[in-house]
């Protein structure tokens, strides 16, 4: 009986040793926690209009999103809007949109172009809201410009078209930058959310988070 238990103990220790050696390497390979003074600095380098909120906010939420992805729309409509209303507008959170158009979506890169053009002239939130709200329409026929024309005034639409043409290279550079960043972070799905507080960045479970749980986590971070 004693021999039996010693064998079990030895197996337990061996198993624990194997876990200690193998699993940290596995879990550390994705979304490693960032602890550095540069953590916040590296979060910017985006079009300023794609950032919503105060630069001095204690929490930064970075969302890698695809305008044509249904889960991104759901996350935006059910969670992010409330985060904007309750945390961004009160200076607690800086929200950064990152473009991560997936190749499987025919029009998502074009949608990202329009959103980035809107960011250049300060209309990002309106265009983002319209793109997600009318995703079913332009996602089916690709007529993004028509959808945006329906949401913006003629004058604003003209400004948007001009911005899309004038800042074309900056827009492409911004999308490429966000895609590079996403690939560096080994993003596999959208939306993927990173939350930075006190110089420490955490990747949230992929696919979006409901508002009540996001609220709990943000309140916990604010209490720290």
């Amino acid at each position, binding site marked *: 009986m004693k021999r*039996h*238990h010693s*064998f*079990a*103990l030895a*197996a*337990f220790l061996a*198993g*624990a040793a*194997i*876990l200690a050696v193998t*699993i*940290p390497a*596995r*879990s*550390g390979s*994705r*979304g*490693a*926690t960032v602890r550095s003074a540069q953590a916040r600095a590296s979060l910017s380098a985006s079009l300023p209009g794609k950032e919503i909120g105060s630069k001095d906010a204690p929490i930064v939420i970075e969302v890698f999103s695809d305008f044509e992805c249904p*889960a991104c729309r759901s996350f935006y409509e059910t969670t992010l809007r409330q985060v904007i209303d309750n945390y961004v507008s009160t200076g607690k959170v800086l929200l950064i949109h990152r473009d991560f158009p997936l190749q499987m979506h025919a029009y998502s890169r074009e949608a990202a172009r329009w959103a980035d053009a809107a960011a250049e002239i300060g209309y990002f939130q309106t265009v983002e809201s319209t793109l997600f709200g009318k995703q079913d329409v332009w996602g089916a026929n690709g007529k993004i410009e028509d959808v945006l024309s329906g949401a913006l005034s003629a004058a604003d639409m003209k400004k948007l078209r001009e911005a899309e043409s004038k800042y074309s290279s900056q827009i492409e550079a911004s999308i490429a930058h966000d895609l590079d960043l996403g690939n560096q972070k080994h993003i*596999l*799905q959208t939306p993927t959310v990173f939350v930075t507080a006190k110089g420490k960045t*955490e*990747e*949230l*479970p*992929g*696919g*979006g*988070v*409901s508002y*009540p*749980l996001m609220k*709990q*986590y943000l309140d*916990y971070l604010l209490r720290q």
Partner: protein
Amino acid sequence: MTGTPAATSQASPRAGGLGRRLLLIGRIALGVTFVAAAYTKLHFNGEWHLGDYQFFFAMTIDSYKMLPIAAVEWLARILPWLELLLGGVLMAGAGLRWAASAASALLCVFIAAMLRAYLLHLEINCGCFGPNEKLGGLSLLRDSSLLALSLAVAAGAFLIRKREAKV
């Protein structure tokens, strides 16, 4: 006629020994898997999350869209520790029949939830081994294999106990 009982009495201890060895391997493998599952819920993104693991795990459980938030939070708090306890008990071999039965029941619940999400085409993370493992056919196959192993360990433990009781 006289040869048969003798042959049986010679073969029986050998078969029992093999059964015990298989049971030992099975319960250690199952125990290590449960401990690993608990570990990846408490240690991820490169560090320990003993103070805030429940937020991340709750987000994963909630994505299954099966439970109210209060139940999600409660489950997120206790499940990693339950898995750790179950894994430890399985590896130690204490109360093996009940531990393996509990592991089988737990795996049945996990598989049912995963299967439901899979059939509903929910593009979510499994939450089985860390926060960023996508739910798919492979994760279902893996958990089904674990259930088969767990059932085999439970059955083996009950059989050995029954045999010992007869002796």
